[in-house]
């Protein structure tokens, strides 16, 4: 679906009439109150009829309070509900869009769309319906001022001119806001980051104090820039202190003269002063416009994510088969660049196949096609005779596992990062043992239940979790440079497990190491996105160009 301002508004439609009506009533109360208060005072002075005016004032105030209570609940219910709905939708689109869907977005940018922009976007409905209500008090005040006495309205505008004059005098001297503060702060942060990369050295050498003073040499500079930012604020603070009373005094002075002439009553003068204050709220209307603009921007940011298409999956199960993988004229083109060029290959089921080639040869794209992490631009990839897009998602993911050079672990604990079904199931344990991850996991403070953020791991340990995660696949295992950070001892153990694998799965191993290629049944040699050769390592080894691949 496409996401528009209207769609966001429609989601909150149950609440919007209520929010709009209470906002209008509140505006009405705000507008009526000065007049009622003025009449009450006149009635008090006149000594008659004040009971009725008091009663009206009480009713007005009570109505205002009830409306604002309703507004709080309705507004929150609407915004909280819409925010959650938008967020769930954003998450679904990012996750279902697959790795290609959001390739052009930074992770941090996507997160800010979900955490920050979604709240702004959810304001779309309430902001639109209350905009009208927000215009009522200031505009109504000016009209009422003019009704009480046209000269009062003239005085109001005179006051506004005075205010503009004062602001102009001040504005001339307002310096540009200093960026230096943020820059200094960034420099301190980067010095700290630098020290943290060497924290083990620092702790061992006992040089924390020295590091501390090295990082904090910039602190006095930060202090200096910080003081400057307050001085800039001081100007606007002083402006506010003068601007506030100017309009009020202008209206009171003109109104006073009218009072002397008996054209208005004391109560009306009071009402006029209050309308002058309300009328000055005209400036804050920019806030309302700003809120709508922010909501529009938030909706726009959400819409970009909503336009990411989800990966389509078929409904077919996989027929029984050995895991035969077929590339049928598969080509991948991104923009003008051809990443894989017309690849046709038939990989026998159950074989161990190494994928080699210089960097940029298209090895990872090849692996991604095999695991259906992306689809070829033209041509197709088939597993046991069924094109991958036709296979049901569950069946596909049960059949194919994929491990990466830099696995990103997703889950709240180590256990669910390996298997998201349940912690410590037989499957998790078996996978962790097979990939030699069990030993180091069981030594973590809470074993498999150790929260991920509190389990600092080396690149090799991460890779082993990534392997464990992919291990249960029953038909095809794709390892995209997935053992590169392991020390030689561990790598040896894992490649042994791989070759002795009793599941007879097809294994596709992207590698830079000739030993791995030598152990494989067949080698796919890629170059510039094209298949250079496909055959046993020993045959290819005769070719000096092949040997050069391993540098």
């Amino acid at each position: 679906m496409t996401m528009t301002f209207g769609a966001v508004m429609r989601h909150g439609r149950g609440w919007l009439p209520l929010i709009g009506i209470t906002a209008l009533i509140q505006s009405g109360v705000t507008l009526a109150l000065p007049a009622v208060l003025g009449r009450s005072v006149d009635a008090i002075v006149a000594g008659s009829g004040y009971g009725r005016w008091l009663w009206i004032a009480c009713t007005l105030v009570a109505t205002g309070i009830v409306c604002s209570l309703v507004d709080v609940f309705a507004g929150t219910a609407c915004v909280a509900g819409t925010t959650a709905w938008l967020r769930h939708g954003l998450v679904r689109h990012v996750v279902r869009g697959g790795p290609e869907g959001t390739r052009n977005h930074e992770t941090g940018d996507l997160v800010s769309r979900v955490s920050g922009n979604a709240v702004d976007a959810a304001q779309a409905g309430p902001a639109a319906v209350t905009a009208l209500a927000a215009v009522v008090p200031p505009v109504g005040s000016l009209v009422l001022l003019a009704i009480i006495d046209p000269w009062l309205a003239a005085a109001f505008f005179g006051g506004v001119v005075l205010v503009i004059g004062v602001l102009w005098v001040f504005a001339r001297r307002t310096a540009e806001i200093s960026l230096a503060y943020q820059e200094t702060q960034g420099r301190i942060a980067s010095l700290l980051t630098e020290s943290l990369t060497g924290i083990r050295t620092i702790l061992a050498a006992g040089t924390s104090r020295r590091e501390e003073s090295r990082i904090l040499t910039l602190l006095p500079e930060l202090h200096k820039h910080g003081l400057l930012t307050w001085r800039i604020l001081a100007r606007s603070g002083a402006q506010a202190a003068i601007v506030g009373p100017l309009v009020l005094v202008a209206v009171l002075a003109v109104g006073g003269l009218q009072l002397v002439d008996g054209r208005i009553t004391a109560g009306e003068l009071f009402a006029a002063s209050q309308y002058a204050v309300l009328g000055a709220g005209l400036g804050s209307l920019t806030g309302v416009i700003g809120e709508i603009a922010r909501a529009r921007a938030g909706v726009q940011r959400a819409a970009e994510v909503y336009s990411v298409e989800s990966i389509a999956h078929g409904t077919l199960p996989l027929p029984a088969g050995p895991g035969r993988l077929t590339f049928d004229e598969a080509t991948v083109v991104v923009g003008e660049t051809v990443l894989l060029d017309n690849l046709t290959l038939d990989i026998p089921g159950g074989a161990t196949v190494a994928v080699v080639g210089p960097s940029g040869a298209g090895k990872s794209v090849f692996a991604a096609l095999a695991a259906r992490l992306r689809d070829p631009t033209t041509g197709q990839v088939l597993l046991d005779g069924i094109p991958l897009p036709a296979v049901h998602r569950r069946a596909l993911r049960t059949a194919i596992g994929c491990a990466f050079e830099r696995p990103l672990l997703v889950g709240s604990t180590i256990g669910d990062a390996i298997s998201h079904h349940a912690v410590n199931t037989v499957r998790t344990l078996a996978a962790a043992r097979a990939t030699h991850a069990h030993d180091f996991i069981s030594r973590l403070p809470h074993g498999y239940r150790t929260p991920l953020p509190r389990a600092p791991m080396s690149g090799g340990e991460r890779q082993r979790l990534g392997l464990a995660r992919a291990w249960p696949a029953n038909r095809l295992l794709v390892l995209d440079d997935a053992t590169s950070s392991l020390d030689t001892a561990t790598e040896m153990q894992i490649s042994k497990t791989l070759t002795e694998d009793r599941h007879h799965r097809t294994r596709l191993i992207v590698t830079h190491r000739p030993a791995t290629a030598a152990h494989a049944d067949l080698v796919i040699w890629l170059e510039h996105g094209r298949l250079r050769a496909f055959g046993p390592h020993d045959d290819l080894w005769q070719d000096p160009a092949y040997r050069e691949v391993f540098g």
Partner: protein
Amino acid sequence: MKRELSYGATALKKRAAVRLAVWSVPEILPTALYGVAVAHATDSFLAGQAWQGIAWLGGLVATAFLGAAGSHQVYGRLGELVEPLRDDLVRRVVRGALRTGDDAAVARLNRQVEIVRDTFAGLVLVIRNFAVTLIGVLTGLLSLAPVIAGFVIPPFLLGFAASLAVLGLAAERMRTSLQADEELAATAGMAFGGVRDVTAMGAEEFAERLVGRPIDNQAEAERSLAKVAALRTLCFAIGGWAPLLILLAVGPWLVGRGVSTGTLLGGLTYVLIGLQPALSTVMGALGDSGLRYVVTLGRILDAQPPTDPARPVVESRGHQVKLRGLTFAYGPAAEPVLADLDLTVTEGDHLAVVGPSGIGKSTLAGLICGMLAPTSGRLLLGGVPPSELSTERLAQTRVLIPQEAYVFSGTVRENLSYLLPDATSSEVAQAVEAVGAGRLVDRLGGLGARVKPNELSAGERQLIALARAYLSPAPLVVLDEATCFLDPEAERRAEEAFAARGGTLIVIAHRISSALRARRILVLDGNKAAIGNHTTLLRTSPLYRELLGHWQPGSDRIQPAS
């Protein structure tokens, strides 16, 4: 919450706070004069004395300028209060991070410290404004008609007190909301960063649930905050609206007692222009900035490590390493990494530790260097437990070079003489030459050149760390996979330099070739261990044979030196 409030209160015990209070006095004047001016001006107009009325209004404008001058000074003084507080927080975060190595400290430095800075300043300003308004209105009312103050001020204070009580209710909910917010950002970052992995695992539903939980928690927290906002509206009804209506209700009685029309209007003006905005601002600020301040400052203070207990300073003799029944586990529920290990490394020995990664080799290095304490058993360094040695003595006894080499922005020389600041140029040059870093130092532009750590490769960083360790005064050198990014030939040169340096060398091996150069080898396998030399281990340790078998000549990666 007490801790956070007293932290803020301490920051206020400064001369700047007094100056801020003093400069607030000019601002009281226009506030106090507001109602008085309206009252007298109205009465003058009613009496037909137009110019007298205008004069009162003119006086109001004049005091407004005075107030503006005060306000200008107040902001300046505010900086003098807030910046030292920020400095202190930056210092705390940096100091804490350097003791715990917590990477989250960088986020704390940028975001959380700024939130505390802004909210603290906001709170000081708002509370000061509240006080200025209250004092101003009170002064004005007392000079105008004390009896009006009697009707207006008590309900106002009652409403204010009630809103303070509501604050306690809000704190917990606000904390939940902020927590859900952070959790949302964290889980979303994890799931979005790992979309490729989620797709590969078919874990789409799992990821949606993972991020969905904080989304729903956040919505729930917002709804529950709405209840607090509703209570706040009721507090405002008491503190803001009740005084107004009471004043109207007793109006006839007041007029009967000789209170003028102008005075009654002045009273209403104080409530509408003075008290109501002040109350709503202070309630909003305490409910939002105040809670944000408490919660965020709490985070920063919580992240501070407890102060180290004073180390009993004992003198060590020599640098022999002796382990007896050493056992170490990362938590009470965790399997031990090392169990019941006995080992003696005599002075001048050259030991290599081999075994699969994650088996506890780095843990052993950390234990020997006194970075970790044994769970049970004994570890003696020069005859005493490392935990009983002073940091300086420890640094003079052993040097640890971890896998992740530390290079900082500074000159090459500063980086190299990090562990021996008064090293002579010839000493530095000799160390550089010994570990084979000569070409690197030349490329960087000599000892005086500045290093940009990001521009060095992992191997080049390791060369700098090695030269630095070579220069250290410590006789015991522990290389914890410190040469893993060097090629085998450079690794050989560096290890041989350390072996020839004198003192003891312990190498946690990344490649088996390191073991072949050592005098003795410790093979770690699960929590079993075997010690010996190459010949004996070939006979006694199946794991050693297996490890070695993979690198027999003819294999591609490493040609053992033997």
